[in-house]
């Protein structure tokens, strides 16, 4: 037991936790963005993450596992997910914006049920995995610890997504309109902006992040049905402890979640997954609105 507390093990687990946190962040930030603008907890988010992973696998396989196939998958999978969410939003979801939030939530649940089974129909229940390009395979030796290159790659992608999302939401015209529409959609509509389309793009952007998360996770785990069910709970927890709708809150929440879980493995392997949940309970007990300021 003592030997597992060595520096190498600690560093290794820490990195695993950080890279897991990056995946969680990408998914949770999409959820948080939708929560911030549309005020709807998107239950279908997990299904879109799963579809992203399956689509990434399909694209990579179609290109014969060529290194370029990996990059095509990373771009193509979020686009496919974006297309699905745009269709769902324009055909159905937009007619419900005037209704109670409970109905919006139940709609996204219906969508999750449908998308889950459609994934099963399309891709079946097999386990799949995709291969990253050669330069992301293997590991780097840092301080005597072998750090997998792909995990280091995730550590670059996560912050890049955070900054990009922050730029979109804080600096672009679209982001400003979206934030304004979240606060007072009638006023925004009154000055001649198509609020319905603003909501649509906000929804699609959030969902594409779920797809991207799914695509990025696909080389690290086996892609299979049911991967939608736990990620959505984790993403919900993360946005709640981070402060609903706050992108940076999602980042803090993801780091807390990923790192407590991976370091928990060193202490109590069987209960590792319980640690982040306990952290959530502690945070919500003392700060029910989350660590950072909610946009609500």
């Amino acid at each position, binding site marked *: 037991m003592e030997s597992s507390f060595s520096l190498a093990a600690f560093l290794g687990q820490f990195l695993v936790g950080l890279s897991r946190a990056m995946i969680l962040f990408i998914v949770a930030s999409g959820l948080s963005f939708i929560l911030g603008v549309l005020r709807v907890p998107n239950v279908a988010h997990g299904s879109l993450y799963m579809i992203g992973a399956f689509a990434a696998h399909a694209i990579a396989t179609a290109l014969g596992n060529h290194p370029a196939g990996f990059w095509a998958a990373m771009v193509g999978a979020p686009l496919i997910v974006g297309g699905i969410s745009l269709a769902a939003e324009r055909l159905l979801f937009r007619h419900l914006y005037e*209704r109670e939030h409970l109905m919006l939530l139940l*709609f996204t649940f219906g969508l999750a049920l449908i998308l889950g089974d459609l994934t099963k129909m399309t891709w079946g229940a097999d386990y799949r995995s995709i291969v990253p390009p050669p330069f992301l395979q293997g590991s780097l030796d840092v301080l005597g610890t072998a750090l997998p290159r792909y995990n280091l790659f995730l550590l670059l992608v996560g912050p890049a997504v955070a900054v990009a999302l922050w730029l979109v939401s804080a600096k672009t015209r679209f982001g400003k309109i979206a934030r304004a529409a979240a606060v007072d959609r009638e006023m925004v509509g009154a000055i001649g902006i198509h609020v319905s389309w603003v909501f649509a793009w906000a929804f699609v952007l959030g969902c594409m992040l779920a797809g991207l998360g799914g695509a990025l996770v696909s080389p690290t785990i086996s892609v299979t049905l049911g991967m939608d069910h736990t990620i959505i709970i984790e993403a919900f927890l993360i946005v709640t402890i981070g402060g609903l709708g706050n992108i940076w809150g999602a980042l803090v929440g993801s780091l807390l979640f990923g790192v407590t879980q991976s370091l928990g493995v060193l202490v109590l392997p069987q209960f590792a997954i319980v640690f982040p949940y306990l952290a959530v309970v502690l945070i919500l007990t003392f700060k029910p609105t989350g660590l950072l300021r909610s946009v609500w």
Partner: protein
Amino acid sequence: MLWALGLWLALFFAPLAAGRFTVYLLGVILVTGLLAMSLNLLVGHGGAYQFHHGAFYGVGAYTAALLITKTSLPAWVGLAAGPLAAAFAGLMIGSLCIRLNKLYFGMIQISLGSLLWILALRWYDLTNGDDGIHGIPLPEALSGSGSAFTFLLAVVGVCLLAMHRILESPFGTTLRAIRDNPQRCAAVGIHVRRHQLTAIVIATFFAGVAGVLFVVLEGSVFPDMLFWVLSLEIFIMCLLGGWFTFLGPMLGAAIIVLLRTVVGGFTEYWTLILGVVLILLIFFLPEGIMGAGHRLRLYRRRAAGPPSRGGDRAAG
């Protein structure tokens, strides 16, 4: 209400007249229906976003299962402790949730409820994890399927009666007033949070009863009982039957359970169908079957007689 009482009495003869599977199915409907009705007590009448009601159902069931299998206490003690444990969990989680409103309430509840789920899933030594606990020995009096059903039906009847009395009491009226306008209620001196917390404890108690009845019916428990998917599925039952009616959720549960049994017989894509049903409901029947029936009768009455004032419970 008289027809409901008649139906309830008639069901006592079901084990004599119907086959084992039919009786079992009726049992599933009663248990699920009780769970959905306890949720509706909070959501339809209390206006609270009780997103993870299934967690309390699981707490009730697991408490009974664990006390029966892990301790030497009589089985009846385990069965009686289930609802109490659920109500206690409801008090704990509820007092954290009610500090905030609506969606925040719901999100916090999903978070805290998921902690219970993960414990049931991961505390392998205690709960058997994924596999759940099977073959829970029941008291002698409940061991036959016929007598188990009679017990179930009796308990559900008593619970429904109790819920009806609660909702018709001044407390129930206050609860609906809080649902419709919490600010005004607070302004006239109603302690909003205390009422909501009381409602949560009551509703989670009945969810615990449903959990215990599940143990009586199935003789086993699973971590899935505490998973968020079940919690949203019982929302569908409330929606289908009618939020603002008393027996609506029971009707919704009956339809969903029957549909699942029938549809599950010839396709593996039951959740797809459930999803489609849910979306159709949201678009075309948001008040549910009994809510729509209620509205229809109201229109007829108006068309027949002079316009009446009040008595119209608008959905909102």
